[in-house]
């Protein structure tokens, strides 16, 4: 029986350790968001559901990724990008849902999703089709294209439509929440390129000798911060706003 198989985590394998803790943390966060959904005002239920979906999808992928990693010792690149292809656009949906009350249009959501697709597809080509031994030109080219998608989302969150809508929302909780999410995009999402540059041919791999095992280490840390943290910010906005509505 598969369930009785014993997986051995080497004591000094930080990557395997973060795969396991990442899996449990994502699962716990999903359960938390699902249950807490019942405690917030109706208008916030969808946002919390999306937060729960993000962490749940990640938890399922982490379940497979930890096994893949322990069995092969390789980076589970395909599984990783399947996870991101689903969860990152959902994070963009969160921006739309938060600013919807202030007049956000569906086009905003699609623009953000489009940028996230550029970011992910370019990142995937850069990583998955990196020639054996690494090719700097390949990783640089796709890394730059991916960065353009990231910069677009960063701009939208800090100065563009999302920021403008949050500013005009007259809701201090939403303003604060959107700003916190923008911080996640600025700092939290910036951890991913560090992992990307650790792959063979990547700049950190070549000049600092950071091995490709660090790719997953950085990705796991970034995922835990961004997915769970992102959800907690949405949860905090939802509960604060619900309390204000209740008091009014």
């Amino acid at each position, binding site marked *: 029986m598969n369930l009785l198989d014993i997986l051995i985590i080497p004591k000094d394998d930080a990557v395997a350790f973060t795969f396991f803790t990442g899996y449990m943390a994502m699962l716990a966060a999903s359960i938390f968001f699902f249950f807490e959904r019942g405690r917030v005002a109706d208008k916030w239920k969808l946002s919390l559901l999306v937060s729960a979906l993000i962490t749940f999808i990640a938890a399922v992928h982490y379940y497979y990724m930890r096994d893949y990693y322990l069995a092969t010792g390789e980076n589970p690149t395909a599984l990783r990008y399947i996870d991101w292809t689903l969860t990152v656009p959902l994070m963009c949906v969160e921006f739309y849902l938060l600013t919807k009350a202030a007049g956000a249009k569906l086009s905003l959501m699609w623009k953000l999703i489009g940028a996230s697709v550029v970011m992910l597809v370019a990142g995937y080509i850069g990583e998955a089709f990196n020639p054996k031994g690494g090719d700097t030109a390949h990783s640089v080219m796709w890394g730059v294209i991916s*960065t353009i998608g990231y*910069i677009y989302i*960063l*701009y939208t969150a*800090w100065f563009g439509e999302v920021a403008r809508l949050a500013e005009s929302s007259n809701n201090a909780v939403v303003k604060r929440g959107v*700003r916190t999410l923008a*911080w996640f995009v600025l700092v939290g999402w910036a951890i991913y390129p560090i992992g990307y540059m650790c792959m063979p041919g990547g*700049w950190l791999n070549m000049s600092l000798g950071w091995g490709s095992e660090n790719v997953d280490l950085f990705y796991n840390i970034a995922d835990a911060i961004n997915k769970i943290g992102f959800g907690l910010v949405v949860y905090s906005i939802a509960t604060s706003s619900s309390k204000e509505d209740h008091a009014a």
Partner: protein
Amino acid sequence: MTKAIFFFIACLLLLLPFVFTLEGNSFSAQLIITTPFLLFLGIPHGAIDNLLYLRNNNINNIQFIGAYLVFIGLNVALWFTIPCMAYVLFLLLSAYHFGQSQFSHYLQNQAISFQALYFLWGVSILSALIYLNIDDVYIIMDQHEEFAAFKSLHQKNVLRFLFFGSTASSLLLMIYHGFKNHIKWESILMETVVITLILVCFYLMPILIGFSLYFVILHSYKVLKEEYNFLLSEKEINSVKNFFLLITPFTLFSIFGITFLFALIHFNILQISYGYCLLIAISSITLPHVFVMNKFYRLFGRNQNT
């Protein structure tokens, strides 16, 4: 986050993957890459000093330009008599000026704790620029005999002390202003991110490219934007085109001036190296500019507060 910070982050992220190709560039190659940006974005931010200074002052344009030229003349004389002092003066004034413009959008305050923050922030980034690129600096100094006099000023342990001391002090001062409610904690976090990115930029990029990235975007672009907003609020201009027309004459004048000096060197009339000449020219423009900007920021701060 200001737009200048955003552009800096975007440019840094887009340039980082190319660090490999930038690394091997000689100083001359770096000059070729950065000169257009320094000339067309760096110089213009000081090209309307006269307009800024003449506001609320009882002197006319000719008197101002005369005083400006006297400052420049005195500075050039100092470079040829006591170069070390001229060099240190240039660095100290630049440090204060960089710090002042970095924090200008939060609050312009003449209190000593703010002035100390401006100065220490500037010392932090200038010492970082030299300390993190010390080998390049030594190469430049070895290549040009005029720079040899400054070698004693660039001892590694002194620079390390200056860098760590000023960085820690400026961070502590920011925290102090946070507790005093002068600056929001979010802004302190942003400034910490910014100084970290500047240090990363200086560490990874070749010296001139790293500095230009900071100077052109975080400093010059930001100051140009503040000058534009100020003149707009004072109804001195009503469009970007007006502003462009205002900054053009002295920008061109400065560019022609530097070109003229380079021509003198080329034809052996002036016998100093291009790099040394450029350093004197930049410091001579900087010296009066720092005083004008100090006054401008008082006006700018008053405008922001009203």
